[in-house]
Every structure is written in C-alpha cells, then in structure tokens.
C-alpha cells in the first residue's frame, strides 16, 4: 500500500511540475493527502485519528518553502513540486524500511468513514457554493463613482521643478471616470495665480480612460511658479521655471 501511495504522490507532483491546466487543484489535493499519509507511515503511527493525514500534508508545503528559501532556491511551481516529490520519496523510503518489521494496522472502517465525509463535503460544497455563487452574481448597490486626473506620459515622472522652453510645454494628463455619467467639465490651467487662458470644455465619457494634451505656457520668469491643471473638481499641481533669469 505504501508503494502505491508513494507512486501517487510522485505522479501528482510530476503533474504539478508540468503545470497542465487540468484539474490541478484535485492533483494538488491528491499530492498533499498522499504526502500526509506517508508522513504518518514514516513516523510509524499505527492508529491514526481522522484528519491527521490532512494536517501532515498541509504542513508539508510551508516546510518545503522554508527549505527552498534556506537553500536559496526560488519558490515557484516547479521547485515546490520537486520538493513535494523529494519529500514523498524520503518519507516513502523511511516508511518502507519501517514496514519491514510489520505492515501498519489497516482501519477496516476507513472506506466507510471516507464515504461519509465525502458525502457531507460534496453536499456542503454544492449548497455553500451555490449560495456564494448566487450572492456574487446578484446585483449589489452601486459604489460611489469618481473622476480622476493624473499627470501622464513624461509628466508622470516630474520630481522637481520643470524648466520651461519659451514656447511652453504640452503636458499629457490622464483622465479617468468610473461609476459616473457622461459629463462636460472645464479644463483650466493656472500658472502662478493667473489663469493661462479661458477654460475649455472637455467631455468625460462614463467609465472611460483617455489621455489629454494640455498646453501650458511658460512661466513669465526664471522664478519658481506653481502650475495647476484642473478638470472639474480634480487637479494636478507641479512647479516650474520660465526661460528668464533664475531668481
């Protein structure tokens, strides 16, 4: 029996390493239960309470992750699957050695117990899963909407005062809207305290993201000036100097 469990564990670990996208959760469950059972056999536990193999299987994962970390190996699907296979081989080997002195006591009620648990589990999965699925799919109250404005493109990286050329700059901004209807909002630019021109209307479509180029004229001198680009109630602010002599 131990050989069969070992074979199941190694085969499941192999499938997990290959990462075939078919029933991987079931394969993982088989691998963990098999490794859990091998733990118990390797430790020579004769009478095993229900659930102990699950605990043993479950703790194998952090143990393998810890070993991988300590040995400097990256924790990922293949290394974890290899770790599971190695652990299964180790535990299986120890269990087989132990069983030379006599096979473990088989629980005659185990299949019936497993059946009773499986029936409960499946019924609970169907009932709970259906309730959860239905709840997720039902309409929920709308969340508050918002319109955001962000510096985009090169401007998103502004981390100090911007040096303006005499002709000014085209500043890209990103406008995003979610959960709000179509709206026309005034886009305005201020350099220092002065508006750089009359506001221009910009249409913000519902649930959309778009880039907008905004012309910002150069500040009048080389002093530090506050530059604000606002769209409706949202705005971005950065600082810049004009082409004149620095202050």
């Amino acid at each position, binding site marked *: 029996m131990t050989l069969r469990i070992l074979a199941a564990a190694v085969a499941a670990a192999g499938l*997990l390493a290959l990462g075939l996208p078919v029933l*991987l959760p079931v*394969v*993982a469950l088989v691998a963990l239960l098999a490794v859990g059972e091998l*733990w*118990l056999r390797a*430790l020579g*536990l*004769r009478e095993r*309470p*229900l*659930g*102990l193999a*699950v*605990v043993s299987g*479950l*703790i194998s*994962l*952090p143990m393998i*992750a*810890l070993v991988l*970390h300590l040995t400097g190996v*990256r*924790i*990922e699907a293949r290394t*974890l699957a290899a770790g599971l296979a190695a652990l299964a081989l180790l535990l299986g080997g120890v269990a087989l050695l132990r069983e030379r002195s006599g096979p473990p006591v088989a629980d005659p009620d185990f299949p019936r*117990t497993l059946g009773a*648990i499986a029936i*409960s589990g499946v019924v*609970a999965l169907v*009932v*709970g899963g259906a*309730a*959860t699925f239905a*709840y997720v799919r039902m309409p929920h109250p709308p*969340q*508050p*909407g*918002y319109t*955001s*404005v*962000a*510096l985009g493109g090169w401007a*998103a990286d*502004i*981390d*100090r*005062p911007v040096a303006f050329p005499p002709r000014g700059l085209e500043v890209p901004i*990103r406008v*995003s809207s979610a959960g709000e209807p179509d709206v026309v909002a005034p886009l305005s630019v201020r350099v*220092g305290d002065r508006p750089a021109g009359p506001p221009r209307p910009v249409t913000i479509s519902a649930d959309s993201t778009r880039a907008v180029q905004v012309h910002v004229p150069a*500040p*009048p001198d080389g*002093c*530090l*000036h*506050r530059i604000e680009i606002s769209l409706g*109630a949202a705005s971005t*602010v950065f*600082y810049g100097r004009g082409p004149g002599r620095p202050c």
Partner: protein
Amino acid sequence: MTLTAPAVGSPIAEEKPRKIGQNAWWGAALTAAGAAGAAALVAADRAAEWGRPGAFGFFWLGMLVFTVPAVWWICRRETTPLLRTSVLIAYACFTYLPKLLRNPTGPLYHDEFAHWRQSRVILLDGRLFDPNPIVRVIGDFPGLHSTVAALSALTGASIWHSALAVLIAAHLLVVLGVAVLAGQIWRDGRTAAVAAIAYSLNSSFLFFDTQFGYESLAVPLMIWTLVTLHRAMRATGRRDRAGWSATTVLFSAATVTTHHLTALGLIAIMLVFSAAVTGRRGAGPAAWTAWALTAAAAGLTAGWLFWVAPKTAGYLDPYLGRALDQIADMANDGGSGGRTLFSKSVAPWWEQKAAFAAPILAFAAIVAAAWRLRRHRDPDPVGRGAAVAALLVGACYFPAALLILTPSGAEGARRSWAFSYLGLALVVAPLVVALLDRWARLAGPALAALFAVMLVGNTAAGMNPSYRFPGPSAYGSDTRSITPEVLAAANWLRSTQGRGLRIVADRYSGLVFGSYGGQFPVTGSVTFPTYDLYLAEPGRPVPQPLITQLSSWNFGYLIVDRRMAEEVPEIGIYFETNEPIPHDGHPAFTLGQLTKFDYTPWTIKIYNSGDIAIYRFDFTSIDSPLGGPR
C-alpha cells in the same frame, strides 16, 4: 478512530440496517435545512448591503435553522458514529459560510490585506520573510503565507481562492481536532462531538478565526499538536511513543512558524497538561513525555523568536503593557477610562443581552463541570490529568474577559478565547452528555436554547457588525472604507511608478496601497510621527526632524484622503491606535490642513480623484520660495 467509535453504551452498532432509511430521511432534511439556512444568510447580507431592516434576524435564522437540528442530531444517543462524523463535517462546512459570504472575492478585514500581500510577495519574488508594512511581524511567521502561495503556484489558482481552500480546510480541522482530542480524553464519540460543538461557540469561531490571518491556520495546528501530545502521553510502547512524540514536535514547529501568540498559547496549555499529569500514580512515563515535549516546543518557540523573529516581543509588549496600565487606571478611577461594550453599536438589543449572558452561562457551565469532575473520577491517570488541565485552561476564559474592558487589551482578550474555550469545551462536553442522558426531555430543549444564546452572544461580543455584514461605504471602517476610488488610485500608482515604493498614508489608504498597490506604506508611530505632516496648519512648517526622517529613508509619496476632514472615522482611528489626535465626535482635520500640500513646492500633486490625492515628495524644493506674481 476515536471519533467514529460508538458512544458508550450505544446500541447503534447492532441496529445499523434498521436505521439506514431513517438516517437517509434525516440526511435529506438536514440538507434542506442547510439550503434554507444558506438562503437566509444570503438574505441577511442582501438586506444589510441595501440598507433594509432584518439583516440580524435573517442571519440568526439562517444560522439556527441548520445548526440547531445538526447539533440535535450530533448529540442524539441513537445517532451512529459514522453519521455523527458526517454531520459534524457538515456543521464545520456550514459554519464557514457566513465568512465566505462576507467577502467571497477578495480580502476585506484589516489583517487579510496584510496576509494577502505577503502571499503575493512570495509568488512574485520567490522568497520568504519579506517585511510587511501593514502588520509588521507577519513576515517572520510564514506558515500561512507560504502554504497559500505554494498552493497558488502549484494549482494556478488565485491567491484568494488558494487562501479560501486552506482556510476552509483549517476550519474543518479545528472541528475535527477538538472532537478527536475530546474523544481521546473521554473515550466516547458522542462526548467528542459535543465538545467540538461547544468549542464552536467561542467568539472567534465564525468570523475571526476564519479570516485570512495566521491564527486561522495556527489554531488547528495547536489543537492537533495537543492531540498528538495526548497520544504520546498515552502510548505504551517505546516505538509508538517515539512516533507520536516526533509528530508532536513536527506540529509544534509548524505552529511556531505560523503564529506567535498561538505558539505561546500552545506552550501554556502544554505546561498545564504536563503539570496536571505530574505526580499521579501510574502516570510517570506520561508526565515525563509531556514535560519533554513541552520543553521541545518551548525551545522551538524561543529559538524562533530569538533568531528569526526578534521584533515580536517589541510588537506584542505594548499591547499587554498598556492593557495592564489601563486596568490599573480603571481600578483607580472607579471604572473610567475603560471601554463601554457595544458603545454606538447597531447590534440589536437581544444580541447585546446575549453577549452579556454568554460569559455568565459559561461560568455556570464550568462550575457544574468542575463539580461533576470531582464526583466522577476517571481511574486512568492520563485521562484524569487531561480533564483537570482542560478545566484549568477553561477557567482562564474569565480573567481574560476582564481585558475586554480595556481598549488595548480587548484584542488580546478576543484572541485568548480561542485557547481558553478549548478547555471549556473539553470539560463541559461530558456534563452535557450526562444531562441529556439523565433528563433528555427537559435538557434537550434547554441545552438547545443555551446553544442559541451562547452562539448569538459570543459572536456579537467577538466581532463588530461592520465586520459581519456588508453595508454602505463608511470612512474609517476597516471593511467599508475601501472604495473603487481608493483602489483605482493604488492601481494607478503601481502601474505608473512601480511597486515597493515608500509612501506615507492613513490607516485605510495604507491597507489598499500596501496590499493591492504593492507599496510600502507607513501610517505613523511615536518614533516616526508621519501624522504630523497632516496635522501641520497651512502656512506653518512641518517639523524638520520628520522631514529629515522622510528624506533620509527615501519616502517618495504622500497619500491624502479628504474624507479625514469631512467625516469621523467609524472605528475612531485615523492612523494608529495611539495617535495624538483628538476624537471628540468631529473631524480632527480641516480641509486647509489636507489641501495645503497643493501649495507647497516640495509636494507635487501627480494624481487626484476628488477624495484621494497622491503627492510626490521633492525635498530639494522644501526651502524654495515661490516667485513672481502668485
């Protein structure tokens, strides 16, 4: 298997064939009850999220419509062991449903964001022990995160779905583990199942120990360590004892690497078990085994805390210290300075009354159990010692309840109940069975009523309604202040500026930016008072030492949530529990304090969505004067 062993004196084994039809009928009825209960739980959450009345009523209707018949079936003398196990599994599955329905698609509770982030970092970087900005010590306890991340990596499932698989398994293992432990102590399958039901009445069972948090995995590991400890103590042969001892060490190591408090709780319970067995006639080897395994577990814990997680003591110490100070203050001030339970709670009066009744009922139960234990002496010294140990552990529930009255001790008190209720459940279970056997007609309905009151009361005492039910967005609630706007801001920062950025934020923005956003937020502390940035009045300088700290530690971004100036946080915290900010029922900030960053040259406003603004620090411009016409 102890759990599937027939109840003492049960005639069931001989009557199996006759019972099959009846059991099938009851199985169908229980399935229907489960479906009805699930529907009512869905109705409760729907009522809560749409602001309709009846959420609490639907919730408890849903819970009780399934659990009461399930418990009745479990406690029945005539139920076959196999069916009892089956119903117990169904009970464990059903009791996970309230939490599953609360947030089926992603993290929601405060600690869940921290654990979700930690698992994601393991997947992204392929290594353990990364520091966590939301709960600073969890990186040093990788048991849960590595399990979830490993499962996610192996199966391709999302982190959240992998976490749900682990948490549901852990919840089942809690119920099974208590039943197995009780079965070993009392050697009766029915008593074992009753103990599991009694344990499920603890405050943390439905919502706290089911969350994506390290205790949710550590508590079942602790319980199963006690199972193997008890087996090792009872073992007769050397090989058998060695096998169970090795398993105990393995499981205690897994507990230590998963959660600090549970590891400490495990050692405390093991100590009580060891002491309770010591000195009993015929229990010499059992006592030595217990002491040796306790020493091993203590050594593992001490080693881990000393070499791997040295920050843990500094993390836990202030909570206990402040709680003790607050108890002393309360004693000196005649009760002032403590918490008022259910202050401003929207929980219905009957939940609140039940919450106060539950500890009183638990006290009556443990006194009666102690009296029964004194009268019915188990001749087996290990069994007797374990029963006495359970009584002592259960008695710890009552002093811990005192801590709930202090702001700093409340969290610790809640966490301790998962441990002390284990003792309570173990020692009260045989009393329940005895009552049912002696006065079945009277005791049955009375115990069903007690079960309902304790389930309602303990759950109400353990978790705020905003954690239990969905509802409209509310600023300053861990579970309801996360809006699409905050999520969008966090996603924008990560997609344009990368992850792992050091940012300054409030508690609620920090949760989202630190988890989904993948950033490294700091929300302030006594030694790094980042809240002073927000508190500075417009036109007044920010304290220079703070600027120096921010600059030298490469903090690059500031998150400002305007709701801080418009609303009072629901849980009374803007940044952290000990923030020096007045909480007098009015917003503690003015709009000017929060929008002042629009006018300081060292803060570049790169993102704004109404409530949320993101500023980039430019400390080189802090002394730059604005020139020209302004």
